[in-house]
């Protein structure tokens, strides 16, 4: 009993860190630009395929495909931004959220069909040579791939944290989040900040896609499911905080795995959405967000 409980918790944490990374890009983009890009899951899917491609062509370790995936998704993010989102920058906040929501839905359909055309509807997965390897400590299994994913997710969370805290550009991004007009008066080019945040968000979605391809599988219609996960985590953690995103991800991961243990894994997906609705009703600023942010 004790072992299955600790196993459940460990798996919840491992999955939760991945969820945090999935939500990180969406949260960054929404926090800075107030664009609600519901095609986030499709960008993630493209990241998965980018890694799958390089992995199958070169046969290298799946985690070594991350740099090329980052580059690919940076480019895709830049193109998508210039084609669809650049026009929305000057809209008032509410219109911006609504319009980007619509554009995002359209974009997700386009990206799904592109993926279908390029890679067919088959499920693809990345299986590394060590995919079945796991450590056992006190009867609890630690799958190697999941551990490596946890580490990767934490590295990217930390990297973004340091970027936003320590660099001039990162500070400009935070200033823009707080008060874009005051930021403009500092000589910060808001358009550039928006572009940068969007492209960074796409790149982060890409890495998350790599991890999803390694841990689960990828196929063209997977996006919505992951967009939903990202939204749940974002709402749980509150906006504008990387720590909040991490905690939100872990909470979702743990809730899901505990639900599988206590009820049945059929209810796993539902529980996240129930949580989502409850938070929106009772604590719309997120568990850790402040009312104003």
């Amino acid at each position, binding site marked *: 009993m004790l072992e299955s409980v600790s196993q459940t918790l460990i798996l919840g944490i491992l999955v939760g860190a991945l969820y945090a990374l999935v939500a990180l890009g969406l949260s960054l983009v929404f926090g800075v630009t107030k664009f609600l890009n519901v095609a986030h899951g499709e960008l993630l899917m493209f990241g998965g395929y980018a890694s799958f491609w390089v992995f199958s062509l070169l046969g290298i370790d799946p985690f070594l495909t991350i740099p090329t995936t980052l580059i690919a998704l940076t480019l895709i993010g830049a193109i998508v931004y210039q084609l669809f989102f650049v026009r929305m920058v000057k809209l008032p906040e509410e219109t911006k959220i609504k319009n980007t929501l619509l554009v995002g839905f359209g974009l997700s359909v386009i990206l799904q069909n592109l993926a279908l055309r390029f890679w067919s509807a088959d499920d693809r997965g990345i299986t590394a040579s060590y995919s079945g390897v796991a450590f056992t400590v006190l009867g609890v299994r630690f799958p190697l791939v999941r551990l490596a994913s946890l580490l990767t997710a934490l590295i990217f969370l930390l990297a973004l944290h340091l970027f936003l805290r320590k660099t*001039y550009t990162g*500070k*400009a991004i*935070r*200033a823009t989040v*707080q*008060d874009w*007009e*005051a*930021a*403009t*008066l*500092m*000589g*910060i*080019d*808001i358009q550039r900040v928006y572009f940068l945040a969007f492209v960074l968000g796409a790149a982060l979605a890409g890495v998350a896609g790599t991890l999803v391809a390694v841990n689960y599988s990828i196929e063209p219609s997977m996006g919505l499911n992951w967009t939903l996960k990202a939204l749940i985590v974002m709402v749980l953690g509150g906006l504008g905080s990387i720590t909040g995103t991490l905690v939100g991800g872990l909470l979702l991961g743990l809730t899901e795995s505990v639900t599988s243990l206590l009820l049945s894994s059929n209810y796993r997906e539902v529980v996240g959405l129930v949580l989502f609705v409850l938070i929106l009703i009772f604590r719309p600023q997120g568990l850790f967000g402040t009312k104003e*942010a």
Partner: protein
Amino acid sequence: MLSIDAVDAYYEDIQALWGVSMEVREGELVVLVGPNGAGKTTVLRVISGLLRPASGRILFQDRVLNKEPAHKIVALGICQVPESGRIFTGMSVLENLELGAFVPDARREREKTLRWVYEIFPRLRERESQFAGTLSGGERQMLAIGRALMGKPRLLMLDEPSFGLAPILVDQTFEMITKINREGVTVLLVEQNVRAALELASRAYLLENGRIVGQGTGQDLLSYESVRSAYLA
């Protein structure tokens, strides 16, 4: 240095400025006074590029600003202390000051400028690592001014820096502004505290209903019958 020529400006369909013409010369401390809602803040927004003038011309050091984006106008040396400071409350005092020196020219000399700002406002040095949101009202105003100074302004524009401050702090703020002006920074000051502002002005303009209705030295405006009865009674 700065000349505004027959500028009209609108918010949506509502005209806020009607043929406003003003001039600020190098080294001056120019004050713009007028009642609430006269369009004083709008004048600053038009200069700093946050609002586009519908017609007229804004010239700064022989450069037309009408179409320049706001962030480029900052890089040209026009820094603004917006109404109620608008400091970044979720960031530290030092980070606020660093952001003030965001434009390349200012960033290169930010260590030096920071020492200068700390000399003017020693309190900011003491509070350096504190969140700006934890500062008192007076300290926030110091930070807002210090942050603008970090941009190495050729022209410093202040929007009602005395607003909401205790009387003793108001006097201190005006002293600071005079001191900054004496150190060679040209100042354009928007104020509701008419008497105090006019007393330190090199020149002043009176704005009412979006129109300039009076100008002259600070003393000139202080002796205007309309100014006396409306603001100084």
